[in-house]
């Protein structure tokens, strides 16, 4: 008669010969570290942390996981930037992490806003023209719904992607400079 085994016995038996390689362990550590880092960034976004306490928590996290990768932290902050949104908090954090990049970033975000505004104004004019010429609809009560304009949406998406790429490049460059100066 076969031996009756508990679930735990079965699991132990099946995983007995399983072990992780060093690379797998490192990848697992990195993944866990990045998840915790995102948690810290969310706490910062929710104003539960300020730039100073964020850095303290980050240092503790780096010690716990024995990972020191300032580049990935800066990029993770960069990914939180919404080019069309209010980024004051993220710029404050970047000012603590890579201060030399903040002024250029602010210029880039201002450019983005100006270009975005110009695209929107152009789309509104296009919509008003279309409503007037094709439907004889006009007047101060008419406000364009630019979301109906495919050309506007495409232009806005292209601008957004371009700005995000430039933010990434800017932070990457700043991080490299920081690393080479140490």
């Amino acid at each position: 008669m076969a031996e009756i085994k508990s679930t735990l016995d079965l699991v132990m038996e099946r995983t007995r010969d399983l072990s992780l390689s060093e690379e797998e362990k490192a990848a697992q550590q990195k993944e866990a570290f990045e998840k915790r880092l995102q948690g810290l960034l969310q706490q910062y976004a929710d104003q539960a942390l300020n730039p100073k306490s964020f850095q303290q928590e980050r240092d503790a996290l780096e010690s716990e996981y024995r990972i020191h990768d300032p580049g990935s932290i800066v990029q993770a902050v960069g990914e939180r930037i919404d080019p069309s949104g209010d980024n004051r908090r993220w710029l404050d954090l970047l000012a603590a992490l890579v201060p030399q990049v903040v002024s250029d970033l602010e210029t880039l975000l201002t450019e983005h806003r100006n270009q975005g505004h110009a695209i929107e104004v152009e789309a509104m004019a296009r919509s008003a023209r279309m409503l007037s010429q094709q439907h004889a609809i006009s007047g101060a009560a008419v406000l364009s719904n630019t979301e109906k304009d495919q050309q506007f949406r495409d232009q806005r998406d292209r601008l957004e992607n371009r700005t995000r790429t430039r933010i990434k490049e800017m932070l990457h460059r700043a991080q490299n400079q920081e690393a080479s100066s140490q």
Partner: protein
Amino acid sequence: MELASGLHAFIWDTPNVNNCNSYLLRSAEKTILVDPGHAAYFDHVRRGLERIDLTPENIDLVICTHAHPDHMEAARLLTGRASPPLLALHAAEWALVQSMAPYLKATMGVALEDFEPDFFLDEGPLQVGDLALIVHHTPGHSPGGVTLYWPEHKALIVGDLVFNGGLGRTDLPGGDGNQLKQSIRRMSEMDAEWLLSGHGQVLSGAAAIKTNFQQVEQTWFNYI
């Protein structure tokens, strides 16, 4: 029912089923349908149109005084056509619809893209071909509620702002009692011969309308 030349009312008078009154504004050049109502009861509007030798295909523009389903849901029956009429409502109302999108999808199977307005309405004059209207933003029942004024007939199309003997409820999302009172007071100052509400009976005559506004204020304002 033709109230005045080019001004038609499709009054919903089935008391045990909720649906709104719809109004048709017609000129030599353009036809505007205000508040198409619930999709399930759109035949009510269709029959009204047939009585004046029109079909939904003849509608150039659909305006929704607000985005509650009993006023707006049937708009999707019209926007899906090959040559659909344009759809307009206030931007604040559209923002409310967007915020409720998951519920609308889950409870009514309604997709947002079926209702995307072609343009938004703001306070001010609205010219549609040879039809001249004035749009008033009248929040309270809903944040982006609008009242349409047609000066040619001194007609005030108020949606669910105020009724013959009553006023709009304020307990639905985005409702606001103070805004409702303020909006009603503003509209009570209009030079109106027709008070065309989203529910209930049409009210005609400037004196009757003034009295209605006064009675609504006296009877209900202390409770909201």
